[in-house]
């Protein structure tokens, strides 16, 4: 009896100790053993095109890791593992040799079917971990705009980088108690729910993008060129409908994410815009009342000496109207108009239309080009700048600057994200002068112009060719050119501005009118059809209604 009482006494004492005196200690030990903080990863937002088609999304993937000292496999199964992982056997063995480490990544983010086969091999010490991988179904067409992420899902280039914060979201966490088998049996404390990344809807149109890219690729390959870019802008909303570069890359294949092809040339490479600057000089001269479209200007003998330097025309002409100066792209004529203006006015106008200024697009590496302050201009420099030498701009800037003509004198803000409403532009020249300049651009693409290959079936177009020798070091490289073309369509009431640049065409043809204008033509025709714009020119219909003999 006494023993029993004593026993109960001991038990009571023990209970009191656990529940009252040592409570904190035991609570803590319990927490350490069973309470876990689970991290709840936020899923990265998707990148969509303007119609909601997926340009980048997440798919599950598995990463293979190993505890080297546990791995104890025979040769054939290791060889099989290596071949499944597309790596050499030596590489695999080298990774497994490091016995000091208790954790080695073998390969990150292999796809699920491969992971299943690896699982089936049943090699001891090889483990898998579930992860997510970024997938880009459009592949290389939209690669430069969309960009890519690193293996941890952090944006490295393009929109993935520019909108990394919005896309990533914020990871949540919850504190739970797990039982012996690892099942969650109770949640304790407050949950912090994960905040998923936002979807980013781009202004790109997947079809236009693909088509522009395809035509660009064909042109670059036909002309043996080094590279090329194309930009398509919607005039009403300032949205970028397509922005493509060639060569491109597969953003999903991690091993070739280095080198030249990663550059988004349309935004990051600047060049001297050459003759494509001439319409700006003429528009400014019209605005200032210095000339009228019909004013006659003597350009013979195709040469003009200014401060010791000589400006020449590739094809000397006689007396030309201002219209014809643009149509035939006369350097001498343009310089004669430009020299009537104050350097300051020219500089202000160039700046107003965006030259020398970084475009307001959220894109890593976008550049502003070079436009020197007017105070340092010498007369010869003012002259060369009137036909596009001595300053530099990216193709994107050039395309945007042309919106001034397309939008009746307003410079539009550009956007890589979808815009719900038409945007307000900034008036630079009057609608009348813009229309007059458009007419000149139309003539340049018409009979007797430099850009006849820009014509399309059904749509009237207007634009300006440019051919610039490439700078190398301090001077110009011999036989290295860039051909480009900037234009708009339909010319009376433009819907799109398209700019095309072909870098170092190598197969004999290098004029912008020969290499870039055809890309413009095909892109315009296709894009306008996709936008549902009705042709504004008479087209000879080729619809043949085949009459079928009725049978009785």
């Amino acid at each position, binding site marked *: 009896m006494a023993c029993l009482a004593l026993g109960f006494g001991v038990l009571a004492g023990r209970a009191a100790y656990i529940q009252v005196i040592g409570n904190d200690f035991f609570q803590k030990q319990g927490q350490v053993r069973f309470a876990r903080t689970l991290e709840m990863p936020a899923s990265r937002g998707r990148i969509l095109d303007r119609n909601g*088609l*997926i340009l980048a*999304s*997440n*798919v*599950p993937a598995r990463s293979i890791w190993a505890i080297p000292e546990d791995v104890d496999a025979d040769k054939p199964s290791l060889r099989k593992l290596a071949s499944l992982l597309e790596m050499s056997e030596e590489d695999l063995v080298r990774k497994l040799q490091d016995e000091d480490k208790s954790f080695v990544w073998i390969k990150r983010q292999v796809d699920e079917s491969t992971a299943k086969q690896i699982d089936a091999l049943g090699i001891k010490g090889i483990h898998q971990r579930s992860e*997510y991988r970024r*997938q880009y*179904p*459009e*592949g290389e*067409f939209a690669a430069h705009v969309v960009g890519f992420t690193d293996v941890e899902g952090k944006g490295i280039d393009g929109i993935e980088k520019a909108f990394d914060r919005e896309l990533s979201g914020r990871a949540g966490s919850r504190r739970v108690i797990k*039982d012996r088998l690892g*099942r*969650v*049996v*109770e*949640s304790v404390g407050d949950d912090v729910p994960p905040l998923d990344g936002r979807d980013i809807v781009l202004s790109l149109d*997947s*079809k236009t993008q*693909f*088509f522009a890219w*395809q035509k660009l690729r064909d042109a670059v390959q036909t002309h043996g060129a080094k590279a090329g870019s194309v930009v398509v802008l919607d005039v009403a909303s300032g949205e970028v409908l397509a922005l493509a570069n060639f060569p491109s890359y597969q953003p999903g294949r991690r091993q070739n994410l280095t080198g030249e092809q990663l550059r988004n040339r349309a935004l990051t490479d600047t060049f001297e815009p050459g003759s494509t600057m001439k319409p700006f000089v003429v528009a400014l001269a019209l605005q200032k009342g210095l000339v009228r479209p019909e004013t006659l200007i003597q350009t013979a003998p195709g040469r003009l000496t200014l401060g010791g330097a000589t400006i020449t025309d590739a094809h000397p002409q006689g007396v030309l109207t201002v219209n014809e100066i643009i149509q035939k792209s006369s350097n001498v004529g343009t310089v004669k108009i430009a020299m009537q203006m104050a350097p300051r006015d020219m500089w202000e106008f160039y700046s107003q239309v965006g030259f020398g200024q970084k475009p307001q697009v959220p894109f890593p590496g976008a550049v502003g080009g070079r436009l020197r302050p007017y105070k340092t201009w010498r007369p010869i420099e003012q002259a060369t700048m009137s036909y596009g030498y001595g300053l530099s701009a990216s193709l994107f800037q050039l395309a945007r600057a042309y919106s001034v003509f397309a939008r009746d004198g307003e410079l539009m803000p550009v956007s890589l994200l979808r815009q719900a409403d038409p945007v307000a532009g900034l008036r630079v020249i009057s609608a009348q002068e813009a229309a007059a300049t458009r007419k000149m651009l139309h003539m340049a693409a018409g009979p007797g112009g430099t850009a006849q290959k820009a014509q399309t*079936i*059904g*749509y009237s177009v207007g634009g300006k060719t440019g051919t610039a020798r490439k700078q190398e070091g301090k001077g110009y490289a011999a036989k290295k050119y860039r051909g480009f073309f900037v234009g708009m369509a339909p010319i009376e009431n433009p819907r799109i501005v398209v700019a095309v640049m072909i870098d170092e065409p190598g197969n004999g043809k290098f004029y912008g009118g020969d290499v870039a204008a055809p890309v413009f033509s095909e892109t315009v*025709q*296709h894009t306008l*059809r996709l936008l549902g714009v*009705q*042709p504004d020119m008479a*087209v*000879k*219909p*080729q*619809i043949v209604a085949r009459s079928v003999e009725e049978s009785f």
Partner: protein
Amino acid sequence: MTRVNVVLLLAVIASALYLVQVQYQSRRLISELERARAEGARLQTKQEQLQVERRAQATPQRVEGLARQQLAMRHASPAVTQYVAAPAGGMQ
């Protein structure tokens, strides 16, 4: 007095057993909920993956390739397009 004590004791024991039962139930349900959540997440992931795959099967490149090769189609040009004017006051 004793009777009250006995009743109270029984009540305490019943309540304690019930507590154990409820605790057990709650853990079981939470574990089930957790499993359902994991399943939900898995299905969500699967859906996303299938969407991406569907998109990859329908990229303009693939569609164009198939249309050209298997169906012998080509791009429409304005020359072979007939534009139909919408009747006035019809569709808006």
